[in-house]
């Protein structure tokens, strides 16, 4: 009989952040994970609230936003299938510093931050492999933000 956890582990394995991890590591991770659905227009999290989960997007689209009194809401980046978001759940003070709004119906894996932190600390082999993957994800995000910050399409006189 296939348990709910096994089904979750199987679908979790399809996400690029998890793909290729050992069965033991995926099982380990599944224990901290649940499925989350966010309706279009709803917020996954808001700036200032407690960052309790790391998210792996399965489908849909999330806008990462900041609100500025003078400029209104600014979309920083949209995140879609196979992306991850929520490093704040792994780093003190565990608070979101942006808003995340679903601009399409979105399905995600939500990995409990406290549970994940505990596992990263308890199993250094898992911790190393998973942190390397997160580092790669963060590196790619940083590269994109650099290009975005250059504002390359602005007309310079």
């Amino acid at each position, binding site marked *: 009989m296939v348990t709910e956890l096994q089904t979750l582990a199987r679908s979790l394995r399809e996400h690029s952040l998890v793909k290729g991890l050992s069965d033991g590591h995926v099982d380990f991770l599944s224990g901290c994970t649940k499925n989350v659905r966010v309706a279009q227009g709803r917020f996954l999290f808001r700036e200032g609230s407690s960052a309790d989960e790391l998210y792996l997007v399965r489908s849909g689209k999330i806008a990462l936003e900041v609100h500025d009194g003078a400029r209104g*809401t600014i979309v920083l980046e949209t995140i879609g299938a196979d992306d991850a978001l929520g490093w704040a759940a792994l780093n003190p003070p565990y608070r979101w510093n942006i808003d995340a709004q679903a601009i399409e119906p979105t399905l995600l894996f939500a990995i409990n931050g406290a549970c994940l932190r505990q596992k990263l600390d308890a199993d250094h082999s898992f911790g190393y492999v998973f942190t390397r993957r997160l580092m790669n994800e963060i590196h790619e995000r940083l590269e994109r933000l650099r290009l975005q910050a250059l504002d390359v399409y602005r007309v310079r006189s």
Partner: protein
Amino acid sequence: MTNLLAEAPASVRPDVMIPEFLPITRARRDTRDVFTIELDVSARGGFSFAPGQFNMLYPFGMGESAISISGDPDCPDKLVHTIRAVGTVTKALQALRKGDIVGVRGPFGRPWPTSDACGKDLVIIAGGIGLAPLRPVIYHAVNHRDAFRKIAIIYGTRTPADLLFPKELEQWRGRLDLQVQVTVDAADRSWKGHTGVVTKHIGRTEFDPGNTIAMMCGPEIMMRFAARELERLGMPTESIWITMERNMRCGAALCGHCQFGPSFICKDGPVYRYDTVAHLLSVREV
């Protein structure tokens, strides 16, 4: 000068330095600072060009500017240019209306290697006004769809208001045999498309890195980042093609204004294989 041109057979370019005078049949505004003009080429029996080539356009008394042809190479009865109004010449072109005359020299330059892409996947990456020089490639690829395997168009621009050719992008996106990704660098909440840079979408596009030709046009920094991403996915640099932009004057490699390292962009470019110019892109003095 008009008499001299009148004596020459319509289909023969009398001299690369002498402009032909063509009337505008249509002028339209695309975005805040981008516009498109169509020129009447019926008197000269059409205007053949290859995707990626450019003309020197001359609004009288204002000087010339090198402008890529943005029309359909399979429809030589229309000569189309999409232009960003940024300087004296392009602003003068923007002020012209239907019936006004434009001096035209060309076509010049090395075109996109569309025949090299036959039988392969084709990835087209455009940034900002860079979609205009690539639109002839897209027209060509769509007109000859069976000649290519997968075709992907990845287009990034500054804001939703800066999107070029939105109706055509929508048409191409509606086709099942094209992958089209459009993204903007900055947006407010009313924009429901992608926000972020083009490089992100390269990795989300289906193509075989070992059997693909990539063609890119946009700001040099964008092309460098995009080329790096293509390389990371396993694409050889010999399969990546880019366009270069420099101040061009004569269009015939005589004046030297567009020298880029050992080459002249007007003659040896504007389309270059990436591995032949990559080492020059980060050289400050070039």
